[in-house]
């Protein structure tokens, strides 16, 4: 099996997404894999963008520093669409992820329902391996 080269993490600014990013950076640190953090721009973000397309959010830069991850291997990508579709597209060119990482529950999700669960939808449809980092997971 070839070593991991490209890891993609879904990001919506929620605490669970931060945890997923930390998990991915820890995984990538001893390898040469790049980590691309992907944000999905919904319809409403046209009224006011939450994240810059061109600049990695300071919160992510801080997490990379905390994890002592080489910032040169950390990439930021904003794409149009719902979170599930954007993550599935990230498995294709140009990012060509060989691992998708998502938090188990993003912003505003209601416990006990599968409806709107990005992690469930991604695992259902992805052709690449997916890691779902549980909500509140404490990294060792």
């Amino acid at each position: 099996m070839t070593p991991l080269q490209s890891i993609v993490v879904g990001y919506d600014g929620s605490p669970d997404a931060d945890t997923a990013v930390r998990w991915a950076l820890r995984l990538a640190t001893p390898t040469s894999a790049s980590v691309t953090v992907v944000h999905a721009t919904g319809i409403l973000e046209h009224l006011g963008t939450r994240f810059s397309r061109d600049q990695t959010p300071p919160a992510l830069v801080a997490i990379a520093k905390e994890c002592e991850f080489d910032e040169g291997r950390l990439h930021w990508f904003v794409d149009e669409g719902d979170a599930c579709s954007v993550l599935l597209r990230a498995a294709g060119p140009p990012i060509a992820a060989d691992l998708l990482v998502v938090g188990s529950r993003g912003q505003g999700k209601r416990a006990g329902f599968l409806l709107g669960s990005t992690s469930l939808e991604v695992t259902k449809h992805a052709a690449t391996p997916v890691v779902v980092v549980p909500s509140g997971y404490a990294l060792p």
Partner: protein
Amino acid sequence: MVLVVNGAYDDAGHADPGHPERPDRVTAARAAVRDLHLEGDLVVVDPYAATRRELARVHDGGYLDELGAYCYEGGGDIDQDTYATFDSWSIARHAAGGGLSVIRELQRRNDGVGFVAARPPGHHALADRAMGFCLLNNVAVAAAELLARGERVLIVDWDVHHGNGTQQIFWDEPDVLYVSTHQWPLFPGSGSASEVGGTHALDRTVNIPLPPGATGDVVRRGLEEVAAPVIDAFRPTWVLVSAGFDAHRADPLADLQLTSGDFAEMARSVAGFAPGPGRLALFLEGGYDLDALRSSIRSTLSAVLGGSRDADGLSHGGTDTEHVAKVQRDRVAALDMARSIDDEETTL
């Protein structure tokens, strides 16, 4: 010619404070119908809650169960754009049922034009997922009913966002032709010209993506030069329109530059694809500036009912005139590629 519209039902319960997909939109749509002063030429049909059997033609049973239960438990945010409330399940079923009522009345009369003024909109709703403000795919539910009766259905989607749900649902269905004009890149990210349909339905998806700032002249050229030859070859027996009005230049959720006059012109052109009276119905999708929504619906309906040209003129000059030719090249290349793969698989 009569206009057949669905009657009002209480949609106030599907609302989220500050959200642009709000009950006032249907109020504006109904005001636009009143503006036409149709009197005896206006037929109002009762909407009803679409049945599970009718919805299950296009939606997974598990998804319908989950959505119903989610609403019953009080609802909440489904994703960053989409919400549901306790009332949303009933309201969404009435939106889908309103579409079915309108097409049945058109069939019964074999005359008239239909307009489904209902919400929430539907064209982003996938078979198994709500998204993009949409819970149930209203136009797809109507198309599936027509399909079950042996019709060949053209769906023209001029909402500014690509109708990914409708495209997905009919991706491999040879008796549905899906044509979409939309801004790209923009939510939901799908809708490139190279998406041309599944193995059993090659050339049954026609996407005409438009760059931000595009004006009505490019949309019209796209419909005439890219879509019309495919539609003519398809020979639809019914035409449904996913009529979003958020490509209007005043809309806050996108960047196209259309006028209400442009919508009227598109409507005239699309109405020409219907094989006869009683075989054209328009379904409200997006459109979030209430004044633009009202004037655009008024112009559109006036146009399909044979009214005169709109006072609000046509827009021009918003983008490179070569854009449509590039869309056509991308489509042809994708079709060639898909057919060559199909040939290889047949040979093997």
